[in-house]
């Protein structure tokens, strides 16, 4: 094996592992048309246009945005199974992400998200601020609020989430945006998406 071949064999896979997920392929989510999200039975009926990001945070999740995920980020988690993580592992051996379990209580879900964010975003500045019972996708669920700051950024972000465990799988929707202007402007749009969420046959407008 020549030196160049050896370098190719070692460095290229390493760089590929470091590379961010491919980000092309953002698509339009049309107003008034129900869509199945996150490769699952979870369906949403949007009351306005959204953009679906081409890059998925994990196998059973997808992100919608109005102006980019740094300004408004709605993420749907569709049927996360036992022993699965919320996001792709960032470093499975050194910093493994916590895994969902069907035996978790609903009140454990906000902590699962908090611990996943602390690892995936490498930030200690993630806090769950409130947790309360609610109905989500027609089932008993939990709603929670949180705040966090990404490393190397000074913008404080606020978030809100809704989650339910149905047939042993986790269904969840979260919204986060900078606490200046964007959170207050777009939270009502997120709550409208959550109110339209169903499991199974999509609702029609």
């Amino acid at each position: 094996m020549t030196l160049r071949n050896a370098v190719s064999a070692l460095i290229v896979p390493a760089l590929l592992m470091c590379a961010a997920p491919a980000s092309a392929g953002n698509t339009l989510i049309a107003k008034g048309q129900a869509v199945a999200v996150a490769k699952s039975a979870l369906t949403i009926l949007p009351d306005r246009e959204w953009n679906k990001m081409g890059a998925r945070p994990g196998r059973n999740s997808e992100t919608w945005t109005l102006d980019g995920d740094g300004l408004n980020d709605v993420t749907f988690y569709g049927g996360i199974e036992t022993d699965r993580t919320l996001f792709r592992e960032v470093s499975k051996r050194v910093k493994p992400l916590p895994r969902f379990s069907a035996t978790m209580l609903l009140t454990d879900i906000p902590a699962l998200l908090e611990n996943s964010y602390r690892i995936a975003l490498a930030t200690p500045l993630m806090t769950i601020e409130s947790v309360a019972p609610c109905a989500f996708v027609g089932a008993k669920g939990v709603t929670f609020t949180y705040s966090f700051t990404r490393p190397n950024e000074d913008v404080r972000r606020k978030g809100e989430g809704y989650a339910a465990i149905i047939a042993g799988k986790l269904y969840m929707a979260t919204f986060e945006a900078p606490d200046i202007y964007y959170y207050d402007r777009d939270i009502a749009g997120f709550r409208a998406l959550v109110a339209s969420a169903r499991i199974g046959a999509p609702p029609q407008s």
Partner: protein
Amino acid sequence: MRHTLSAAMAVLCLLASSTAFAQEKSGNKPGFTLRPGSTRILLIRPTIKVGAQSTGGMFEPNADWTQQARDNLGAALDAAQQQLGNQVIVAQEPIGPAAATFAGYRALFSVLADSVIEYQFFPGNRLPTKKRKGAFEWTMGPGVAEIAKGTGCDYALFIFDEDQYGSTGRKFLQVFAAMAYVQVKSGEHRGYAGLVDLHSGDLVWLNADQAMGGDVRTVEGAQKRVRQLLENFPGSTPPAAQIATASGQ
């Protein structure tokens, strides 16, 4: 065979990280113009971060370099204000709760500019709702007026500058990666200048470049950087030297 595979993988790597190679771009809100001498512009203290880029690509701030850049860019901006075409007022640093509001908007500007670059300027990752012809709809919200209370200004000029100089380890990685036909950047030099309408909060002009020139740790480099940042600033007038050169030709 392996060479072919390496080349294919390298292309994939380049495609995956292509956002890092966005070209200099600027954008205007449709219909926005600024006549010289028609308004007052509030210059917000620039956000300046200077440091090294580690082998793994992490930013490592350097206080000495940052201070040099602050001094040099500050002096270059003072000189450049004469050519902006309108009266420029330098914002006073507030104290107390107002300082947090001020810092919040400065931070929001960099995130907003990142979004414009990533999701409007860069064609490969454009959002469908931002693709529409003539669309340039970006805002910081009307609350931004709070930072200019009592100044009588109609617009705020935000400037963000981040320079990461490649460490020795990063440069080595760049060389080794090149041997595998993979392009790795050593150093990053991002600069954004944006004009915000203080009445609506809308971003009316943005000049953003993720590969700026000029070493901001030197006087000449900082002058070059400021010229790039304020290139085509709405209502700006070219420096007297340039006018003389042009008329002499």
